[in-house]
């Protein structure tokens, strides 16, 4: 059920973001609202439910690019697994650690996206830049904090058992 909640929320947030990005004329950077959902799913859901939610968020982002390639679903699931692994050793019940995880996940996601885009591009590395990543990390972390009350509403009643692939 939460999978559908995550998917609907991601669809709504991406629609809103695409309009806001257009309205304010963001040229250099974007806000990865979907990643905050992926991080939350990694920290609070069961493995299957969280992975499905992450895949769905990535799939939606892929569709929104206009040229779906499969890159973003794969990266979303990869980020999900990495955050889940790190979540075993860090207490993530409060806002602070969540913000930290969102920041690190955004940076990692951006670097991986640039790397894979470079890997499959004929133009080589010169056209892809990481200069916008710091701003992207800040904006996504702030967006994650703003979404925190909303995310708490779709939190499961019981926390999953500890373990990486539980």
């Amino acid at each position: 059920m939460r999978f559908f909640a995550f998917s609907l929320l991601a669809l709504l947030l991406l629609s809103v973001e695409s309009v806001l990005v257009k309205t304010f004329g963001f040229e250099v950077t974007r806000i990865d609202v979907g990643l905050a959902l992926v991080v939350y799913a990694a920290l609070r859901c069961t493995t299957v439910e969280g992975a499905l939610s992450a895949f769905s968020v990535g799939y939606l982002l892929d569709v929104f690019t206009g040229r779906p390639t499969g890159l973003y679903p794969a990266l979303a699931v990869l980020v999900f697994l990495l955050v889940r692994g790190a979540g075993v050793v860090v207490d993530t019940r409060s806002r602070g650690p969540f913000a930290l995880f969102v920041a690190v996940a955004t940076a990692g996601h951006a670097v991986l996206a640039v790397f894979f885009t470079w890997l499959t591009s004929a133009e080589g590395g010169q056209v892809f830049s990481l200069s916008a990543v710091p701003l992207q990390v800040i904006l996504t972390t702030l967006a994650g904090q703003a979404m925190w009350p909303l995310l708490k509403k779709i939190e499961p009643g019981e926390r999953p058992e500890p373990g990486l692939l539980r």
Partner: protein
Amino acid sequence: MVGTLLLAPLISYLTTGHRGREPNFIDRAVLFISAPLQAVLTSSIETVGEVGGGYLALRGAHQEAQICRVGLAEAHAELNALREAEAENARLKSLLDYVEDTVDQEIVARVIGLNPSPQFQSIRINRGEDDGVRFGMPVVTAEGAVGHVIRSVSGSADVMLLTDPQSHIGGVIERTRVRVTISGAGGGRPLSLDLVRREDDLKDGDVVVTAGSDGIFPRGVRVGVVRTPERPSVSMFLKATLEPSVELNRVEEVLVIPVTMGIPSPLGLGGKR
């Protein structure tokens, strides 16, 4: 299952690369839901902006009206001169038996969203297959070229901007008629001019228009203005950037030109992507 969710899209990406895929049932459902939502949000924001802007615009409206009257009179004079020139042009063309390329009526579309991923530079417009928008059609504004359609579904379409790193179009320097290739360099960066020979004449401020040789744009659409041309000491080619004529991330309304000029669909489906 988690492994499948990770590996299936990754393998798909690594094998098909940047080509993308035909929109499937789920893609169409997502676009069917999200496009109207984006349109409503865009209209709401614009309405709020217009109400606020309308109040501010009232201040000094009298002076502005005076300026507009003068401008209108000048425009009328210019229009009359252009009508005469057009009539003369038509007479001369008929003398030369020149056949005008006929193009169907352009499709006016409103931009309802900007792609939220920084790796791809694209916009979404509120016209799609139902309105005759097809894969490969060029998209312009009155100021110049914007990009071309990369996906069209029933009620919306996505347009790859000129600034996308995968965008390459043919251009001509208006002053010297030197042919160039215009490539996107990613968000926030100007376009780059490629394959301009060292000995060619290129100056800061030169206007570049489309060459009509790329299978996307018709000839003569303004693309931008040359900035900072350099002659590297060891290269065969000049280095220069191009400032786009259109502010691509702030464009609100566009025209889709209903010609595809033979550009193939990535999946060979006759351009109806």
